[in-house]
């Protein structure tokens, strides 16, 4: 059961990115730049999107709880850090991104998409403007090389893209104690407000700190060179220990993000799913003249509705939890499929995102999902399962 379990886990997290059984770790896998930190903490490692990454340290539930109640520290060095520089950077990005980067002020960031001509999601990403001709993009590990290649096709002497996989460190510090802990190592420097980014000097190196995250908690994402990253990781673990900080793996990262209703590319988003269908139309900006890939289809979906829409589902305590791939029924009719599901550690019952045909059932309506040939009740709910912080 063990290997099958892990195979399913790999599927649960990354159906498109990685459908490898645990035993095929022989495939080319990059070590995280922070691997020595994980080894020192006896982390359990798994292959994820071409990277060998910690899935858990002290236990998924303990890590989940620590992030909700104190702080969690996550290695996100696998995430792609891409820098775009030059006089034409903004206009170039405007023609590629679904959210309008022209809206950003210096030091500000927002959520965006790179879509294909069908309006499907190639990747979801965070876009930060450091200065009028210097942008910083954080993309998914599984799409890093593909996105960098795509961007480089647009290169001119007036816009350059850089940031190869494995050349930088990244970590996320999340939870109610995150700012207290980070302030200790920054010694009182002024941290940026939510969805902003700023440069800091730490251990003699220039680093970037963004007030963003993937857990539904307040927190920070810290980007640096590799030697500095190793020092920051250790300093944060040390400073956070008395406050209840735990290093956290991919396991709790997945349960935390789903409780917050945040999508995972490869499951809730894919080249076959548009941002409108994913319920994320507010991050597709059509109040601007410039075309970007898939714009006509997205425009049509925004105006007259999409054929499918993502809904939230809540199960019941004592019932089997919903999982990726389970069919969803309204009466006898299958209306969709679960794209992400997990037994919520905070709520004590299953929660899920499901892609269903429109018109979709309203909040509070009773549906069922199918587990091992058996129907299990679930209620339609808002996609954010926990109150916003």
């Amino acid at each position, binding site marked *: *059961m*063990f290997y*099958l*379990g*892990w195979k*399913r*886990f790999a599927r*649960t*997290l990354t159906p498109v990115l990685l459908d490898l059984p645990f035993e095929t770790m022989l495939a080319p896998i990059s070590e995280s730049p922070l691997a020595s930190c994980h080894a020192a903490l006896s982390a*359990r490692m798994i292959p994820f999107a071409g990277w060998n990454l910690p*899935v*858990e340290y002290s*236990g*998924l*539930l303990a890590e*989940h709880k620590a992030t909700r109640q104190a702080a969690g520290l996550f290695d996100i060095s696998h995430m792609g850090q891409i820098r775009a520089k030059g006089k034409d950077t903004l206009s170039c990005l405007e023609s590629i991104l679904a959210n309008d980067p022209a809206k950003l002020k210096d030091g500000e960031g927002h959520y965006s998409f790179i879509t294909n001509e069908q309006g499907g999601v190639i990747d979801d990403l965070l876009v930060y403007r450091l200065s009028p001709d210097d942008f910083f993009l954080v993309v998914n590990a599984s799409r890093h090389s593909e996105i960098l290649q795509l961007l480089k096709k647009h290169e001119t002497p007036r816009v350059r893209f850089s940031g190869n996989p494995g050349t930088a460190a990244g970590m996320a510090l999340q939870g109610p104690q995150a700012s207290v802990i980070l302030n200790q190592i920054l010694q009182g420097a002024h941290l940026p407000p939510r969805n902003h980014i700023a440069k800091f000097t730490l251990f003699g190196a220039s680093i970037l700190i963004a007030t963003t995250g993937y857990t539904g908690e307040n927190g920070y994402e810290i980007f640096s060179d590799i030697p500095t990253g190793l020092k920051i990781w250790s300093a944060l673990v040390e400073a956070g220990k008395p406050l209840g900080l735990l290093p956290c793996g991919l*396991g709790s990262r*997945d*349960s935390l993000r789903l409780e917050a209703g945040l999508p995972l590319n490869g499951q809730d988003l894919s080249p076959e799913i548009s941002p409108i269908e994913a319920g994320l139309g507010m991050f597709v900006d059509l109040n601007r003249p410039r075309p970007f890939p898939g714009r006509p289809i997205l425009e049509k979906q925004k105006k007259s509705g999409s054929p499918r829409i993502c809904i939230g589902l809540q199960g019941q305590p*004592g019932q*089997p*939890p919903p*999982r990726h791939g389970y069919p969803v029924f309204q009466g006898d009719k299958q209306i969709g499929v679960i794209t992400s599901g*997990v*037994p919520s*550690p905070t709520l004590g019952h299953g929660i899920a995102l499901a892609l269903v045909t429109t018109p979709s059932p309203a909040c509070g309506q009773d549906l069922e999902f199918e587990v*091992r040939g058996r129907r299990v009740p679930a209620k339609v709910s808002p996609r954010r399962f926990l109150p916003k912080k």
Partner: protein
Amino acid sequence: MNTPNDLLYAKSHEWLRIEKDSGTVGITDHAQSALSDVVFVELPKSGRVVKQGEVIATVESVKAASDIYAPVGGTILESNETLTSDPGLINREPYGQGWLFRLKPESPKPTGLLSSSDYAATLTH
């Protein structure tokens, strides 16, 4: 990892304890540790006849659902109902109170299972 000497093991990480004419089945310490926090179990009804290697139960942690295979063929005698309200027993006592079900083996001498040392050897790579 703990692999008691008095048990037989399946390569798929179930253990079997034979006592007189009944067998108790659970998952190994290695399996519970790999799954981490178990939050839900689905167990067989008594009277069900099962073949060796057949999927007979499901153990779910936060991250995954894992099938449990019958290490021997036989007839289910009872399931550990305590697990329904406290599935974490599987993590805390995989060889004790965290047992899954008892069955009456179809043959008094189970075949195709591993000794403690042979099972432990499968975990070292």
